[in-house]
């Protein structure tokens, strides 16, 4: 029956395509016909799926949002560095450890650059990594569950901005510091910045099977600002490139003082060489204090471990591992083309776009053609490494992505446009306006050796006049372009949540089938799980009361609880007994000082409640779960601190 339906739809589809072709030829490419054609190309009919997933960073929301392309529909918000009352992330006892740092519990983060794990230079869809800028951290999201499963804090770092990009087999995810700081941190005059501050570039190893992260080493670079980075790939695999600004090492009014040098640098790091040095015992272990938080899917619980040392490497002690490529002028984006030959350094204050050649760089290194050195690190000659210049393509170049067909697409912040140009000939092919002040842009797979073409979307900082106004603040906007032809075509505006700083995208087929539908109750190893109504109980341990609570359509077990007293600390351990896709249950109790819980099928989550008033208080399910959802409720009796009400609980009968 389904097949018949499908083939009918397919035939209808053919007819629709046919007739629309006729329409456009009849009307002679008029804008009306074109516009409807564009609408069809982003229309995903009810019940149909988008062809691509896009993961947009939430910037200051600390989250990651999941969108479909080409529809621009938002599917999910994944909490990463911020508490999220929708699910209880960062509020539940199990997930609080995820937000632990050396500065204590931090309920917010500034999430910037998501990057998807790769195998042999191609996106493999296993994990997505994202950096936190403010309190330097790197998070890993498992694309089986779309949940944050690991966060590692980065010591010696500040403004973790040139992150979190992965090497072509996900050997490392990098976390480069934007701000240089005293290492180790100490009390010293700020004006003594120059020569005393350092920039830590951290190489975090990723275990091939589990994805577990560990800081393998940190390269302690001169005190510049390390802005963005990109791994080499193909021929340049083994190298990592970082743009710098403030090579002046100014410490005040940087908008002037960090813009004095005509050229800053791209730092080229041969990480394979440093890895070898480290594997042979190179570098020194340095005292440190940073959190490593891991979420265990079988106990549904995160643990936070404080690590006490980190291996640091002085680049001048590893000859041949680090070089500086002069790049005009305060370069921001640092992007490597799919072949690994071209390194695009977008000088954000430069009128031109500078592209370096990896081959020329190696050649200059081999022939020792150095222009000088900085803190023991050789500086190459600008002319010796230059592959070409895109002349005056626009104002304020920021970021570049590639379509895998020899073309590059660069965003221009000041002139608000995307410019398409050709690698090798450096000629501008096309330009399209964005609305307005574009930051990053993304091509699915554009950050890998094999871009998946077809679409490109630009993420704008300002949205005025694109949507109905919503008071002084509007959500940022992304704009979707079809890049399958010679010219870019604007297809769609769609609003984004938070600041869509950067995004990663890929073909849906890579992860859709692997997406997990439930947690198996049988595999639930949470110490407070109740795996059936029969396992439910209430246990008092001093002033702590542990309630082993279950949820299933449409009741809690138990639904009546007595014997709790004012001043107790009540742990509601809620296990969802459902084993059916997309049937979570919620839990909320009156006067809860943290948040509700949203518990997935087979999962256990814990909310702490500290009753302050005597009474009989209700709790209920917050997620509409069934026809009897409104009836899914219970009562908890709170007695005076000095009362002797015994602990009792029941379901389906009165407490005697």
């Amino acid at each position: 029956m389904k097949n018949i339906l499908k083939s009918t739809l397919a035939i209808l589809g053919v007819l629709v395509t046919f007739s629309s072709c006729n329409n456009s030829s009849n009307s002679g490419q008029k804008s009306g016909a074109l516009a409807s054609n564009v609408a069809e190309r982003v229309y995903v009919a009810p019940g149909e799926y988008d062809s691509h997933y896009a993961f947009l960073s939430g910037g200051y929301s600390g989250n990651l949002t999941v969108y479909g392309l080409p529809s621009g529909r938002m599917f999910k918000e994944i909490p990463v560095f911020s508490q999220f009352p929708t699910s209880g992330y960062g509020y539940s006892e199990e997930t609080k450890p995820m937000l632990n740092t050396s500065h204590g519990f931090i309920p917010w983060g500034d999430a910037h650059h998501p990057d998807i794990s790769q195998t042999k230079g191609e996106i493999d869809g296993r994990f997505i990594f994202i950096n936190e800028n403010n309190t330097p951290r790197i998070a890993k999201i498992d694309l089986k569950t779309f949940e944050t499963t690991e966060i590692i804090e980065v010591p010696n770092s500040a403004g973790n901005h040139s992150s979190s990009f992965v090497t072509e087999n996900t050997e490392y995810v990098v976390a480069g510091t934007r701000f240089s700081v005293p290492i180790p941190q100490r009390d010293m005059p700020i004006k003594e910045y120059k020569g005393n501050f350092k920039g830590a570039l951290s190489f975090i190893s990723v275990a091939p099977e589990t994805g577990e992260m560990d800081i393998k080493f940190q390269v302690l670079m001169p005190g510049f600002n390390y802005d963005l980075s990109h791994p080499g790939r193909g021929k340049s695999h083994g190298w990592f490139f970082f743009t710098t600004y403030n090579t002046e090492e100014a410490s005040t009014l940087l908008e002037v003082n960090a813009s004095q040098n005509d050229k800053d640098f791209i730092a080229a790091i041969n990480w394979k060489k440093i890895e070898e040095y480290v594997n042979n015992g190179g570098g020194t272990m340095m005292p440190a204090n940073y959190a490593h938080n891991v979420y265990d899917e079988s106990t549904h619980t995160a643990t936070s471990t404080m690590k006490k040392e980190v291996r640091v490497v002085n680049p001048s002690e590893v000859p041949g591992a680090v070089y500086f490529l002069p790049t005009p002028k305060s370069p921001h984006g640092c992007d490597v083309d799919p072949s690994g030959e071209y390194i695009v350094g977008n000088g954000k204050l430069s009128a031109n776009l500078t592209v370096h050649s990896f081959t020329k760089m190696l050649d200059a290194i081999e022939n020792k053609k150095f222009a000088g050195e900085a803190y023991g690190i050789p500086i190459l000659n600008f002319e010796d490494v230059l592959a070409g210049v895109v002349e005056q393509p626009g104002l304020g170049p920021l970021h570049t992505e590639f379509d895998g067909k020899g073309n590059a697409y660069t965003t221009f912040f000041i002139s608000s446009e995307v410019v398409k140009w050709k690698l090798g000939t450096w000629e501008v092919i096309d330009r399209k306006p964005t609305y307005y002040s574009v930051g990053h842009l993304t091509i699915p797979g554009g950050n890998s050796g094999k871009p998946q073409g077809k679409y490109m979307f630009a993420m704008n900082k300002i949205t005025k006049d694109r949507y109905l106004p919503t008071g002084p603040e509007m959500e940022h906007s992304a704009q979707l372009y079809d890049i399958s032809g010679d010219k870019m075509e604007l297809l769609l505006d769609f609003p984004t949540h938070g600041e869509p700083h950067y995004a990663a995208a890929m073909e849906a087929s890579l992860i859709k089938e692997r997406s997990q539908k439930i947690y198996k109750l049988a595999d639930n190893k949470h110490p407070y799980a109740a795996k059936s109504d029969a396992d439910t109980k209430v246990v008092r341990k001093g002033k702590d009361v542990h309630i082993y609570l279950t949820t299933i359509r449409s009741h809690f077990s138990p639904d009546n609880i007595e014997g709790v007293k004012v001043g107790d600390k009540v742990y509601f351990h809620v296990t969802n007994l459902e084993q059916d896709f997309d049937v979570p249950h919620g839990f909320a109790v009156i006067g809860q000082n943290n948040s509700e819980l949203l518990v997935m099928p087979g999962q256990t989550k814990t909310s702490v409640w500290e009753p302050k008033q005597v009474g009989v208080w209700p709790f209920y399910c917050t997620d509409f779960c069934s026809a009897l959802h409104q009836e899914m409720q219970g009562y908890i009796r709170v007695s005076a601190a000095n009362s002797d009400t015994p602990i009792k609980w029941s379901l389906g009968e009165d407490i005697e």
Partner: protein
Amino acid sequence: MKKASIIMIIGSLLLLGLFKFPLWNIMLGAPQYPDPLGMNIYIDGIKGFSEFDLQNIDGLNHYIGMKTIPKANEMWEFSLFPKVIFGMAMLGVIIGLLGYFNKVSYKYFLGWFLLMSVLGVLGMYDFNNWLTDYGGNLDPHAIIKVTNPDGTPMSYKPPLIGFKKLLNFDVTSLPHTGGYLMFIGMSLTIVAFWLGRKTSLTTKT
């Protein structure tokens, strides 16, 4: 007669497929279940079509007061059926072998078929009774009560075979691999009978 006996043996042995494949399958689809729920009925118990289907069917059925789907040890049929099937398969093989060595006539093949058919009809009758009880014997405290236009309580009995609409669910009930193997096996014993008869008539004339 040799050829007929071999077909008889093969036909009987096909019954053993019921030890590996389900006899029957019932699928329940609804708008909120784009992947339909389902159960496979084996001769020794009922299993979900997907891992958690039985739990989810029971979860839905509790609204209308249906009993939970019986476990293997909760129905005598699930311990008797395997014995009957194994016994009939062995009996068929023995009759086939005896036929092969001309110890019994081809008429025994038909006898086996008739016996198997009677047992089959009894099995279907029992199965239908169970479906009627399962779909009609509802908990009087059920939270959802639906009545027919004439005022009698609605039965949620799935169809013995074919398609039926039960509230928001589309229910399809059809034989499965084991059942088809059994039908093919039984048909082969008829073929064996017919071949045996033909051979015997040819020999006589």
